[in-house]
């Protein structure tokens, strides 16, 4: 399944990229699975996307939690807590 990934603010800076297109392996079914799968890259990926950090996630432009299922072609984003206003 192909999905789009986006990273913002401090997460984008730590990972050194703002977006990418990835082909996720079978068994990666939720936003939380994607987060765990990206951690396997190690280094800044393991650190920035580690559990127990304040990390917000969105799927198709809607704020979501780890349990949300991904679909083919969806856009998943990882970013720090928001600080607008």
């Amino acid at each position, binding site marked *: 399944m192909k999905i789009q990934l*986006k990273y913002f603010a401090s997460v984008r800076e730590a990972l050194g990229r703002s977006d990418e297109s990835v082909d996720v392996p079978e068994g990666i079914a939720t936003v939380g699975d994607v987060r765990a799968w990206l951690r396997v890259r190690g280094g800044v990926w393991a650190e920035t996307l580690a559990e127990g950090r304040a990390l917000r996630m969105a799927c198709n432009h809607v704020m979501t*939690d780890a349990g949300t299922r991904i679909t083919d072609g969806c856009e998943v984003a990882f970013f720090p807590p*928001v*600080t*607008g206003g």
Partner: protein
Amino acid sequence: MTVRVQTEDFDLTTEVAALRAQNPKVGAVACFVGTVRDINEGEAVETMELEHYPGMTEKSLEAIIAAARERWPGTEVLIVHRVGKLMPLDQIVLVATTSKHRANAFASCEFVMDYLKTQAPFWKKEKTETGERWVDARVTDDEALARWGLESMNSKKN
């Protein structure tokens, strides 16, 4: 329902005039303008850079307005949020609400700001004399939203 994300400044008078134009049912207008402070966390702020998530930002602001209009029917809401580089004294955000009477205008304006602070994908980065830093989310902002019976997990570790 109007939502704008822009680098340019905004003029309160012009925006409010447009919001209530040709609508004689409006008896109250409430406005909130957020501005850049020159001190945050005890350090002098030289500039502030605002990043956002194009597409999601507009969608989330529209959802916030829809939630406000459901709670206070008949309310009109305008949100203008700036992005890019800002200086102390600059305007950051405008929320204006109109209603028949003041109570709904005040309440919906505060609700929209509380909601926006924890749910709209904007991020502030400050430049101080010691370098650049991303502004931390505040637990008090999650608590502000809780007053409206809504749970926010924005600053929570997960």
